């Protein structure tokens, strides 16, 4: 038992009760040692017991050590008497310790005197004819460095002045020797620092962890003068510590040795997170290895010093230095190896972070290059910092050639003419100057016959500071072409519809001006002129079937509402940046204009003033002026049930609609057409359902929808059906 105790020295510097003893110099007691954190060190874990008492050994008013009492199973409770007894025992131990120290001091001084005595070398002096000799010790700070002797060939006695003079010379000599020793230590420390600096400098120049670790193991041998060294790391796949880099070791050890945490010196240093050494593994019973390592260990060195390679409380590995013969390691060696281990830790940590960053960067790079949109990262100064492959494709410039150029220069390469370039440059300058705002627009590259929709988003760093912006490009050429084709088609159809109707209208206007027109004919002409030509009706139907882009191109709000409301405003994520003409780069204005702001004074009848917007086109239809505020487009979109709100649009409407608008639309979608039920069977019943008679008794048969929209007088009141539902009542 005692042998086992002696082989497990209590490392006082690492014990929980150390500080308590040093500060209070009072006993420390626990009746549950195993679970008491103050007693949490290996000795108590190895020899489990119930109660313990630590008594400080006070020597010359300082704590020289501790005396420990253990109770294996009893939960000990002390009486005052027992405690005094224990303290007396500790005092006796202290006395023994004091005597031991005094003996040690006396022995040291005796040996120093022996050195002096030997230095006098009386026999030698006699052989050289010397008869008198005086020696003084070379002593500094209580330490004997040597002695200074003077001899005389005549017999004489040395006076006190002689002794004093020689003592002074001895002190000077001791001081010189001491300085020489200090100089040598300083030089050695400088050499160590230089070598450590070499490793540090190497750390700064490479992220190759193996290269740095090779430096560390080489410098370990160089600085410590050991025979071999190695860096172990934990390998999850192999389930233990393996040699990552080694020097002067048996290749079989480097290749095959796998140490479990706690196994051998390196395993213990890894597990206990502290330097561990053995002066001779063959004489160290505390070292344990797995049996299957016996063959490998036979070729291993004999003396080991291992220190953990750790960073931020995480142990990354172990640095070990070896001697092939038994060697007692000093604290200085442990300190030096720890410095080298710190360098290894930095190298491994850097490499680990670098690998993580590279992996992340590689993933982001793949995503960046694989995205279907072109992306540019632009610096606050407007310089392209990064471009993905798609951006190069869209701009017809190699992506790597984009990087480093001014964005305005890049886009100017595609300019078609000076005016476009100036507009584009102006817009981009606005973008650069107000780059903290998001923006979007279209970029027309005429040389490539390509239209790109771009979106700009500010980029911010982790501190939230603006550090540039990201430009995303999406090719909308095909979408714009399709939209333009639809728009052109509708424009053409509208033109073809309008032309004959305008001719009829103008002819009727001329006819109405003839003075000799009979009253009946004048009435017909008047009714016909008041009947609205078809384009509005056609527009309304077209608006229901056209895509949003084409509807917008023809003045119909895609959302079904007034164009005064800007639908982009609802997104709320696009703020106004700058305006630009239609060609080149166009910047949308993100904020919706105030309602009514875009309304202007009515244009001249039927005319279209230059510079006015579509909303301001006057309907130009007789009887529909005045209350109409937003133009004909609104009239075309008024829901039938809302017609009472627009009396001027439907003067004298004679159809009282009873079928809800939505059901009426569904009926039409199912192919039903309006038909009018006859009041009573008559001869024209087969023909009448599709026509109604308007214009009083003289009558004019018109299609039902025309009558519904404009007839003032309806001769008969009959039900109008859509499918099997009553859609309205014609009131005579």
């Amino acid at each position: 038992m005692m042998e086992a105790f002696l082989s497990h020295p209590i490392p006082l510097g690492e014990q929980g009760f150390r500080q308590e003893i040093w500060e209070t110099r009072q006993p420390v007691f626990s009746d549950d040692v195993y679970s008491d954190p103050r007693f949490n060190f290996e000795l108590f874990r190895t020899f489990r017991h119930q109660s313990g008492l630590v008594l400080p050994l006070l020597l010359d008013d300082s704590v020289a050590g501790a005396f420990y009492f253990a109770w294996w199973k009893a939960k000990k409770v002390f009486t005052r008497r027992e405690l005094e007894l224990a303290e007396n025992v500790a005092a006796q131990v202290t006395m023994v310790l004091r005597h031991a120290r005094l003996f040690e001091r006396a022995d040291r001084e005796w040996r120093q005197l022996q050195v002096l005595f030997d230095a006098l070398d009386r026999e030698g002096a006699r052989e050289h004819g010397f008869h008198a000799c005086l020696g003084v010790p070379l002593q500094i700070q209580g330490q004997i460095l040597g002695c200074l002797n003077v001899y005389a060939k005549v017999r004489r006695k040395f006076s006190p002045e002689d002794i004093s003079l020689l003592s002074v010379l001895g002190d000077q000599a001791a001081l010189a020797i001491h300085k020489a020793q200090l100089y040598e230590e300083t030089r050695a420390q400088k050499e160590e620092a230089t070598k450590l600096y070499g490793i540090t400098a190497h750390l700064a120049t490479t992220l190759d962890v193996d290269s740095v670790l090779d430096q560390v193991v080489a410098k370990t041998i160089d600085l410590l003068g050991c025979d071999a060294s190695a860096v172990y790391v934990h390998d999850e796949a192999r389930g233990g510590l393996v040699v990552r880099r080694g020097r002067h070791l048996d290749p079989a050890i480097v290749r095959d040795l796998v140490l479990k945490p706690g196994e051998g010196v390196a395993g213990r240093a890894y597990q206990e997170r502290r330097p561990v050494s053995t002066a001779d593994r063959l004489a160290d019973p505390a070292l344990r290895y797995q049996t299957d390592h016996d063959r490998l260990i036979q070729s291993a060195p004999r003396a080991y010093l291992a220190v953990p390679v750790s960073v931020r409380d995480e142990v990354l590995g172990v640095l070990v230095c070896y001697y092939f013969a038994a060697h007692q390691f000093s604290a200085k060696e442990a300190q030096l190896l720890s410095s080298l281990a710190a360098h290894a830790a930095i190298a491994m940590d850097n490499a680990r972070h670098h690998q993580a960053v590279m992996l992340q960067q590689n993933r982001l790079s793949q995503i960046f290059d694989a995205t279907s949109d072109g992306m540019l990262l632009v610096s606050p100064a407007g310089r392209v910092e990064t471009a993905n492959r798609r951006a190069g494709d869209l701009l017809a410039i190699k992506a790597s050639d984009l990087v480093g150029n001014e964005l305005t220069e890049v886009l100017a390469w595609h300019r078609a003419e000076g005016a476009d370039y100036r507009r584009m440059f102006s817009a981009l300058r606005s973008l650069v100057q107000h780059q903290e705002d998001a923006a979007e627009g279209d970029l027309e590259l005429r040389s490539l016959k390509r239209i790109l929709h771009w979106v700009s988003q500010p980029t911010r760093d982790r501190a939230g500071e603006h550090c540039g912006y990201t430009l995303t490009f999406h090719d909308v050429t095909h979408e714009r072409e399709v939209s333009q084709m639809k728009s052109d088609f509708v424009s053409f159809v509208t033109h073809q519809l309008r032309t004959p109707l305008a001719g009829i209208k103008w002819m009727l206007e001329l006819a109405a001006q003839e003075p000799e027109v009979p009253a009946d004919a004048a009435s017909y002409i008047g009714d016909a002129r008041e009947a609205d030509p078809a384009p509005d009706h056609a527009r309304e139907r077209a608006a229901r079937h056209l895509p949003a882009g084409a509807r917008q191109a023809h003045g119909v709000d895609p959302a079904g509402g007034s164009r005064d409301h800007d639908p982009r405003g609802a997104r709320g994520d696009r703020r106004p940046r700058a305006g630009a003409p239609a060609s080149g780069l166009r910047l949308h204005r993100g904020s919706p204009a105030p309602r009514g702001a875009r309304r202007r004074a009515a244009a001249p009848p039927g005319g279209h003033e230059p510079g006015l917007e579509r909303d301001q086109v006057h309907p130009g239809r007789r009887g529909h002026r005045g209350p109409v505020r937003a133009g004909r487009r609104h009239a075309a979109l008024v829901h039938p049930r809302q017609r009472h709100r627009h009396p001027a649009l439907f003067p004298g409407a004679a159809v009282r609609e009873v079928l809800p608008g939505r059901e009426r639309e569904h009926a039409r979608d199912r192919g039903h057409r309006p038909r009018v039920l006859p009041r009573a069977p008559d001869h024209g019943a087969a023909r009448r359902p599709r026509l109604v008679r308007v214009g009083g008794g003289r009558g004019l048969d018109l299609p039902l929808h025309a009558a519904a929209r404009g007839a003032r007088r309806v001769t008969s009141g009959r039900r109008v059906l859509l499918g099997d539902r009553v859609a309205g009542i014609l009131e005579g």
Partner: protein
Amino acid sequence: MGDAVRRVLLAEDDRFLRKAAETALKRHGFTVVAAVDGEEALRLARAAPPDLVLLDLIMPRMQGFEVLRALKADPATAPIPVVILSNLGQDGDMKQAMDAGAAGYFVKANLSLQDLVKRVGELVAERA
């Protein structure tokens, strides 16, 4: 209407529209020279520059835009006000016409003859 007889060149390929507009303008004292296509309109304008040109856009042989650009490119005809009289009503058409130098743009379907005569009279009077 001023005392001087004003001369209007009407370029319109549609027979009914041409006849209606010509009749209305003549009734109000204008002298109307009619052209049935773009080439004829350009030739007539160069031969005897009118006080005003009413120009349709979609015409055979030469489109209205081409006629407009040719008139404005020729120093002899450039000062003549050209008013587009078309059934094309898109913003792009209007902007293109105004950029090319048109003095006005009327959509026929939205215009009565009375209004047409009134506006023509105003434009001619402004020029005088």
